């Protein structure tokens, strides 16, 4: 039997390493584009200050990029290490976008990022700009394929169960790639990355402006970040709303859990702003509600209902019972591959096979599950509501706040009033941690909201783990915590140190431009 401790520790390790990786990825996505924009302005205008900007923000980009790459290696391998049953059950589909990510995106980004740093003296202006754009493109393609893979876990289309190989197999690559969930997620997530890059540049520039340092440099950086940030925030919010609409169709459980919708209301359903979640009794106490809003977001209509969690649990019971029959048919096919009747019965109910596996946790033989075990499995099939409910609200709150600050920042910058409106600058600094908080919360909403499945309605999480020992996981988890904490401290130290130091002013002694550890004065670069 699979040990619950192994399952919980594997989940903890995955969440910890993914959330940690996701501290660096959004900044890479956003900053790479901002660097490309700054350098494009440099190449078009020939104004050296934009080159100085590209180099300075590029240096901070490099500090962040190193950890993004380092922690990404873990992600590529830990599916097989910690989730081996998952890997062989769905690797036929899930492995493909990961491999294409390597072929098409990660190679591009990583090969050219070296030239971004080392190529200033060896490439013409235009060629170097091309290199910078390829890095930005590579990192964004990378996000595309990762989110195609993730989108499939949320909404597994284009695949079919094969009883002879006991796994899911690809039937349509196009369906996997063009999955609406994947596409919406991709734009939502990369936009969140652009917001992160913008907040980073905006906040640090605001700090210089408050300190009256590097004013010309900081004003330009501030303006670019404000414009790019506002556009990106609007994109995040629009696509977030689009996700809500998609969820209403394909991930009803997640939507209902995010909104703590226990009952199916007569349409249009109200939206709960805040409340105290009571998962045990399936109710929310002291809720503050806005009438109609939920129905409008989820269905964009006044007449379609939004299904509540209690009704969804009842639906799960039905599907579990059907899944038990699918499982029984599968056993017959395994015993006798020529049993055409059992094969037909299995294919007819293959959509519910995952629900059959859900009850396996309580009834190892599945087919003999009692009503009580079925009811328990059906209750399990909704995620923890309180963390989703709150994570979602924190994410949206951060998003709205950032939108306001970007509007103020852009208005202030375009009226050339930044130096007088010091409160806007202070707001920009206050805003700095928000995109990270929002991104991490977004991850929690998306992935905790997928529970109890690794692949929605296909493969339960607990069955997906490797046959490891608790000792293995304690070893790996302690190692990750120690290593990652140490690296985070080092990274933050360097980031703060180099941000405080600021860009090298053109009239500084050349020695001040030394960044990568040369202990003798640098030559001015001859680009």
């Amino acid at each position, binding site marked *: 039997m699979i040990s619950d401790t192994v399952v919980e520790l594997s989940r903890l390790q995955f969440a910890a390493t993914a959330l940690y990786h996701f501290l660096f990825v959004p900044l890479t996505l956003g900053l790479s584009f901002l660097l490309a924009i700054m350098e494009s302005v440099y190449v078009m205008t020939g104004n050296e200050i934009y080159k100085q900007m590209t180099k300075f923000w590029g240096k901070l980009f490099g500090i962040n990029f190193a950890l993004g790459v380092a922690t990404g290696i873990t992600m590529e391998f830990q599916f097989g290490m910690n989730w081996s*049953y998952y890997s062989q059950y769905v690797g*036929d589909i899930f492995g493909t976008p990961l491999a294409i990510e390597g072929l098409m995106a990660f190679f591009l980004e990583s090969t050219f990022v*070296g030239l971004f740093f080392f190529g200033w003296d*060896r490439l013409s202006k235009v060629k170097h700009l091309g290199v910078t754009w390829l890095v930005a493109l590579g990192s964004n393609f990378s996000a595309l394929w990762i989110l195609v893979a993730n989108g499939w876990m949320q909404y597994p289309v284009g695949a079919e169960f094969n009883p002879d190989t006991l796994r899911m197999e690809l039937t349509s690559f196009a369906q996997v790639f063009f999955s609406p969930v994947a596409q919406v997620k991709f734009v939502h997530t990369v936009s969140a990355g652009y917001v992160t890059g913008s907040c980073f540049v905006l906040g640090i520039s605001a700090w210089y402006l408050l300190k009256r340092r590097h004013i010309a440099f900081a004003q330009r950086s501030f303006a670019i970040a404000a414009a790019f940030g506002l556009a990106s925030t609007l994109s995040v919010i629009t696509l977030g709303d689009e996700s809500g609409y998609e969820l209403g169709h394909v991930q009803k459980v997640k939507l209902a859990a995010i909104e703590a919708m226990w009952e199916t209301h007569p349409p249009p359903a109200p939206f709960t702003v805040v409340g105290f979640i009571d998962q045990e009794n399936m109710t929310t106490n002291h809720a503050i509600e806005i009438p109609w809003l939920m129905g409008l977001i989820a269905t964009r209509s006044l007449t379609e209902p939004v299904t509540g969690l209690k009704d969804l649990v009842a639906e799960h019971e039905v599907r579990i019972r059907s899944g038990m029959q699918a499982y029984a048919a599968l056993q017959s096919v395994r015993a006798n591959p020529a049993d055409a009747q059992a094969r037909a019965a299995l294919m007819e109910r293959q959509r519910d096979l995952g629900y059959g596996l859900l009850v396996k946790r309580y009834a190892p033989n599945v087919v003999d599950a009692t009503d009580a075990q079925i009811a328990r499995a059906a209750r399990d099939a909704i995620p923890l509501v309180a963390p989703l409910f709150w994570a979602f609200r924190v994410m949206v709150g951060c998003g709205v706040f950032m939108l306001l600050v970007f509007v103020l920042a852009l208005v202030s910058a375009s009226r050339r009033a930044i130096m007088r409106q010091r409160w806007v600058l202070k707001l920009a600094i206050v805003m700095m941690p928000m995109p990270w908080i929002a991104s991490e919360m977004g991850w929690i909403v998306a992935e905790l909201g997928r529970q109890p499945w690794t692949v929605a309605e296909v493969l339960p999480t607990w069955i997906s783990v490797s046959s490891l020992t608790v000792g293995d996981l304690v070893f790996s988890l302690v190692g990750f915590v120690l290593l990652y904490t140490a690296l985070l401290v080092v990274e933050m130290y360097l980031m703060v140190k180099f941000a405080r130091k600021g860009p090298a002013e053109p009239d500084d002694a050349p020695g001040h431009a030394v*960044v990568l550890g040369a202990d003798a004065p*640098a030559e001015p670069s001859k680009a």
Partner: protein
Amino acid sequence: MSDALTFLMSYETLRVVWWLFLGVLLIGFAIMDGFDLGVGVLLPIVARTDDERRVLINTIGPTWEGNQVWFVLGGGAIFAAFPLIYAAAFSGFFVALILVLFALILRPVGFDYRSKLANPRWRSMWDVCLFIGGFVPALVFGVAFGNLLLGVPFRYDEALRVHYDGNFFGLLNPFALLVGVVSLSLLVSHGAVFLQLKTVGELRARARRWHRIAGLVFVASFAAAGVWIAFGVDGYRIASFAGTQAGSDPLAKSVVVEAGAWFANFRAQPVLWLIPLLAFAGAGAAWWLASRRAGWAFVASGLAVAATILTAGVAMFPFMMPSNLMPSHSLTVWDSTSSLLTLRWMFWMTVLFLPLIILYTSWVFRVMRGPVTLEQVRGSDTHY
């Protein structure tokens, strides 16, 4: 033409093609990231002062990042094309892989952060990290290969869940450690050849010395491993199976373990003996060419790396991960791949993108060509 395409797109051919692609990726990793790992190991040995260490780091500084993707892509490609191997090998070698990951994680940060501060203790701490980041993977990959040749203690249950009945210390047996020495010495000598291409003067002379030492260790350990396999390691042979076109079910075959089975392919096709000979010849040519034509020495060294990996692959074919616990549960080319459709998609993706990767990687190496000297490193703001 359409017959050729039908043949190419058949399950059987694609399985062999994907075995070859995996070999290409592994060899790509060992050649490209291999010299980075080797330079990491040589960092504290060849370079003594801080400036010298910066020279070594900067020989690979602009390109190690792209090179490392061969490793990541190798992981992704096994996942996509051989999901059963991805699942069984990575969970079976869990502790060993965790150590490799921890070591590899130190490298990106080591390269980028080391020279950002002038403090000598900070720098020597990262030097240690870069050494570990080179040494541990170079050794463990060989140890893992050694264990594949011996067979790994895993079995499947009726739900096709893989169970592993060994532990980390079981991997550290004498034969596997010998193969670990093969891979470590091979990559260190490869790294030393690269350093002779990219450095001048005293550093180059020291790299040459270490190239000779590592090269001798490689030749001796590679030969010793071959002799050991001939006399002390049983191979695996498929006795009956569902065929090369059947769905990937690792339980649908029977396997026998017998002495000399790892030489069966060489006996059947004697021309294959050229592959291990090429490994020796490449190492020898690299030795001979290093002081005259370092570029050609690097090519020869790369051939030695490729031939070494290919030797192990050819010996085991069609086995990829034999089980010594339940030999009939072993994973082979015929029963551990993805579905036909996935192999087809991945085939076209690889055919499309791999040449592009090689093309732009070559361009980057061309832009960064030429040796790295102490003078360059001392006076530059674009170096690590």
